[in-house]
């Protein structure tokens, strides 16, 4: 039997029994669609987290106060463990001399009330330096970011997010106005244009002040962290070494801080989300397995219903192999068409979700399409084998009379 005859015969059977065909197409397409949607969610989550890291800047090295370590066992000091020293502005200043460092942005965060002209709202505050703008790759809507003054001292200025501007200043121009933050005052020098989040805070709701003003405002000399931007990726390891050396010396020989490279963290998250996406895809693949079993059951019933036809085909010269091929082809066409339908539906729904939730990028990975298509076809072949074998083994005379 020629290939196109095989396809024609299989197709004519599928068209002859539309309800059965539609049912199996739906079952397979749901399986494939589930794989596409769940992997899109996993991949979207990965992209979201990666985006958050990317927003923090590139070639970043971050110093965090404190370190996880095992305590006890030796001297009284060891028994007590190490009480971490705070990271200070002086620590940040000391890192300036390291070769390959492009920018240093000490960061202080907190929350206080912001008041203007009788209006008041609680706002998250980030205290940093002018470098913070380039480290975070932010853009200004209007005005200027913080001035490039010394870390220890700075004029009382601030930049605000668009929501803060809208809520407190309304239609009036915020630039040049004095904004009260807690018990301090600062002059607004600019409006941040960038949207998104920084250190988990919505940028539009944020007020950024010089680091010295923030430490004074919160009456706290310690830094939340120090962000160091390297000139390029290659110098990252050397910078970390130098940073550890300097900070350890400043912290009386104790490494009571943690240095993390942003790209290393990103790689870890990447791995985690890859595994998560694959796990979600695997869970969804179970529905393809279920669809395969459904195909097998329906085709087993079809073999019984079509006994007389099988008998006739044998009477007019069909070999067992040809009957086998006919049923397998039907199963492959069903699972293949179902898979294509599922791919179309899955990708269409992800497009709709992308439009509905623009902040979360639903990204079905390419491999999910290939894998779900292959799995659906394999499921068709594997679960089509038993009915096909049963059909091919029917005795022609028994099949013709329809007796079992």
């Amino acid at each position: 039997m020629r290939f196109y005859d095989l396809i024609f015969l299989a197709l004519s059977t599928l068209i002859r029994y539309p309800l059965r065909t539609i049912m199996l197409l739906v079952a397979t397409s749901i399986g494939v669609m589930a794989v596409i949607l769940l992997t899109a969610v996993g991949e979207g989550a990965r992209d979201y987290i990666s985006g958050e890291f990317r927003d923090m800047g590139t070639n970043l090295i971050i110093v965090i106060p404190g370190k996880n370590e095992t305590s006890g066992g030796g001297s009284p000091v060891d028994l007590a463990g190490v009480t971490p020293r705070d990271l200070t502005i002086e620590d940040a200043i000391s890192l300036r001399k390291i070769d390959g460092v492009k920018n240093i942005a000490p960061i202080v965060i907190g929350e206080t009330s912001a008041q203007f002209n009788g209006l008041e709202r609680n706002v998250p505050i980030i205290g940093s330096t002018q470098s913070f703008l380039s480290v975070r790759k932010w853009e200004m809507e209007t005005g200027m970011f913080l001035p490039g003054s010394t870390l220890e001292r700075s004029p009382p200025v601030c930049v605000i997010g668009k929501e803060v501007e809208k809520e407190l200043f309304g239609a009036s121009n915020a630039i040049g106005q004095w904004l009260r933050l807690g018990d301090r005052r600062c002059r607004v020098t600019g409006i941040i244009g960038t949207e998104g989040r920084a250190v988990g805070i919505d940028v539009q709701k944020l007020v950024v002040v010089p680091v010295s003003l923030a430490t004074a405002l919160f009456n706290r000399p310690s830094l939340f962290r120090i962000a160091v931007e390297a000139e390029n990726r290659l110098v990252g390891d050397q910078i970390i070494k130098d940073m550890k050396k300097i900070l350890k010396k400043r912290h009386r020989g104790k490494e009571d801080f943690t240095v993390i490279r942003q790209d290393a963290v990103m790689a870890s998250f990447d791995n985690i989300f890859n595994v998560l996406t694959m796990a979600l895809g695997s869970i969804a693949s179970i529905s393809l397995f279920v669809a395969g079993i459904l195909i097998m059951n329906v085709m087993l019933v079809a073999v019984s219903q079509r006994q007389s036809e099988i008998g006739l085909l044998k009477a007019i010269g069909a070999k067992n192999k040809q009957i086998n091929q006919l049923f397998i082809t039907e199963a492959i066409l069903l699972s293949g068409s179902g898979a294509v339908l599922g791919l179309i539906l899955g990708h269409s729904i992800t497009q709709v979700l992308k439009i509905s939730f623009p902040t979360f990028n639903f990204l079905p990975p390419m491999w999910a399409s290939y894998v779900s298509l292959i799995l659906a076809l394999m499921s068709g072949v594997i679960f089509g084998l038993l009915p096909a074998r049963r059909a091919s083994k029917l005795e022609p005379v028994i099949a013709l009379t329809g007796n079992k």
Partner: protein
Amino acid sequence: MIRIENLSRKFEVGNQIVRALDHIDLEITKGEYLSIMGVSGSGKSTLLNILGLLDTPTKGDYILSGINTSEMNDDEMAHIRSTKIGFVFQSFHLIPRLTAAENIEMPMVLAGIKPKDRQEKVEIALSHVSLNDRSDHKPEQLSGGQRQRVAIARSIVMEPDVLLADEPTGNLDSTSGIEIVRLIEDLNKAGLTLIVVTHDRKLGNRSDRLIRLLDGKIIDDDRK
């Protein structure tokens, strides 16, 4: 052309063994027109099934065109069915989703013949049964007589040596039945060996040779 020697066919029904055919010897020459008659359960359909290689004997030999079919495997028997034997069934056995032309084409599809060659043969077969104008009709759009004519066209399209007809007029009215009988008799006159299983005495008497079966044995072999 056909030689059957000491052929038996037993079936197990529950704990009992039924002898459908019991040590039969038979020789059919090329171009012969033979009818097989007998009461229900006499073994006539079993004999036809064995002649058509749809069933295999429990014992004995069946030699078709000099080939002993007893030692053939499934594929070899399928090949013989495809090339040397044509079937006409009482209930037509047309594939409902296919048109008349596609049903006639089916044996050639299974034999792997090219579409271009198939088309020509289908047209010849359709003209043999005077159904050229019904080639695109599905079986449900045809009358009983027309369906049987499609089945006859399908049975001769591979130019077989033998045509086996199992109650070919059983599901037809008398007018259509006569048409069908004439049609298959014309094929016999053209040289095709014709073997008909029937209950119909009139139809049986039209053949050159009439065999009567009873309890799996040939009790009468009447040649005109």
